[in-house]
């Protein structure tokens, strides 16, 4: 089991107000799955992804990642785990603006202590896979959104993670580019890496093998591969009614 969540609760406290965001999440994700998390804004999907990616703590329950209990971890340990196990892809790409594409891709290896020469060489290989070899020396602001996202994906892959977390990876891209990015995601998954992405676009979600719908901090339903078509129809109806 790659991910195992049991009764996860999470509240955000601001002053006197406490906002209960996750109200008991039970979830299991196997190695090699391709999962999307959907839900309206405020349903807790980003919070869930942050907890899964060890970017945030939870208040109650237990979370096992690749067999390790993730709870009250020191920042140092969390950083190490993130570096070894997890790759992130973000809606706004989050490339470091003063580093070129190659240096951005190589950065996770810097924190693994890989020498500059070696990590740049590996970074070039990954850029090549993304079809961006000739863009290696370009700065992020010289690239299109799709190119930036591909650089970000290359960066998330370079440390050979077991899981890729993608937070609205297509949110800032047009439809054609979105589909290109999803093709890459599919390939990554085909290579055996678990991919978990958060999206609010049902066509994007439909490309995954499993959809987890969150509603008001609990899992409303889990739709598996075969049911997707039917679900798509239902979702379209819901949208029309809405």
């Amino acid at each position: 089991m790659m991910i195992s969540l049991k009764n996860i609760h999470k509240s955000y406290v601001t002053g006197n107000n406490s906002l209960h965001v996750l109200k008991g999440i039970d979830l299991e994700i196997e190695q090699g799955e391709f999962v999307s998390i959907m839900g309206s804004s405020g349903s807790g999907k980003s919070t869930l992804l942050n907890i899964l990616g060890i970017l945030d703590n939870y208040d109650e329950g237990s979370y096992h990642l690749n067999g390790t209990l993730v709870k009250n971890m020191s920042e140092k340990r969390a950083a190490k785990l993130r570096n070894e196990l997890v790759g992130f892809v973000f809606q706004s790409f989050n490339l470091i603006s003063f580093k070129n594409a190659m240096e951005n891709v190589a950065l996770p290896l810097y924190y693994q202590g890989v020498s500059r020469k070696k990590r740049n060489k590996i970074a070039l290989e990954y850029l090549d896979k993304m079809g961006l070899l000739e863009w290696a020396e370009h700065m992020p602001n010289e690239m299109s959104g799709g190119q930036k996202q591909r650089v970000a994906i290359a960066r998330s892959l370079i440390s050979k993670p077991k899981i890729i977390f993608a937070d609205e990876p297509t949110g800032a891209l047009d439809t054609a580019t979105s589909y290109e990015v999803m093709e890459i995601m599919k390939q990554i998954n085909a290579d055996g890496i678990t991919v978990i992405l958060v999206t609010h676009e049902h066509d994007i979600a439909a490309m995954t093998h499993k959809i987890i719908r969150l509603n008001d901090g609990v899992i409303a339903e889990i739709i598996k591969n075969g049911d997707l078509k039917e679900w798509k129809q239902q979702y379209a109806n819901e949208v029309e009614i809405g």
Partner: protein
Amino acid sequence: MFDIDIWQEIFATIKKNKMRTFLTGFSVAWGIFMLMILLGSGNGLSNGVSENFMSDAINGMWLWSGETSKPYKGMKEERQIKFTNDDYKTLKSLPGIEKTSGRYYIGGNIFSYKNEYGNYTAITCHPDLQDVESIKIVKGRFINEIDIKKTRKSVVLGKDIYDALFKKEEAIGKYVKINNIPFKVVGICKESGGTKHRNAYLPVSTGQKVFNGSNRIHSFALTINATSLKESQAIETQVRETLARKHRFDATDKSALGSYNKLEDVLQTMKIFQAINIFIWIIGIGTLIAGVVGVSNIMLIIVKERTKEIGIRKAIGASPGSVIGLIMLESVLITTVAGYIGLVLGAGLMEGVNFIVEQQYAASAATNGGQGDTFFRNPTVDLNIAMLATLMLVIAGTFAGYIPAKRAAKIKPIEALRDE
């Protein structure tokens, strides 16, 4: 820490943000620059003044007789006080007095050798004068006890007199005429702390005998054994009282007995310089602190500005320690390099000023009858202080970086990466 990659990371950041780095560094460079100039100027002033003092022994005391200005024990004022050889003996035996020399003034003073002649000052003295006035012998010897006892017609010539009369000819053993009386040259000397060496020294006994002075002495030059102001004043009072009792005048009568106590002046002046020095350090360190606070402030802004970047780094595996290291090292690097530039520029400027001061000193010495204008000499900062300042910079850089680095380490990736 000596991982080359960390430095490459830092240099990359600095290179990408040249203006920011420059402005950050400037405040520190300026602080150190000012500190160097202040310290250099303080040293220059202090050196200049102490050089003026060093022309005589710093524990010197001078006494001269005059007319009484106060009635004393039924005697009227305006009575002439006259010192004699007997007073010399009295002074010499007083406790607290180290060296004693009496002087009998002689007039005229035309010096001649062969066809060369000139007007110089002949000073009659005891051998101790060499120590009181820090006279340096260039060749031969100074006046000695035998000269005094045998009233020998010996003379020690100032370097300038020798140069003018003898024109590099051997002078020791030759005779110069002073007011037409031949004196045998026994030595050539220089006065310390000046560029003028126009005095000649004769035995006081010879002076009294040859120039009709009987046993008369006009003034005394002494050194006293005192280290504090209080001690030196006590000795001065004792001297005044002894002479006053002997010659029957009021010991407080400054007109009957003039006296100048050098140590008093020196100690007071040194005290002022100590105060100036402390003052300079306070201002200098204050300026430096302003610079360091500036760096800290800018580093805080940098951390704020780089929140997102730091968040990204943390998300992909940067530990809090590596983030702290990144910010601290950048701060230390900027402060040290900038500070060092300030240090070198400041020290360089003071060296330049020193060069000009020395030239002007030489020029003024040449036109001013040999006495240079010495209120400002060698305004440089010594190496130890510069090293200390460098060390201080590294510490300052660490301080400046600490709070921002702590703040950077506390950045939570999710907050940093949240889309606005």
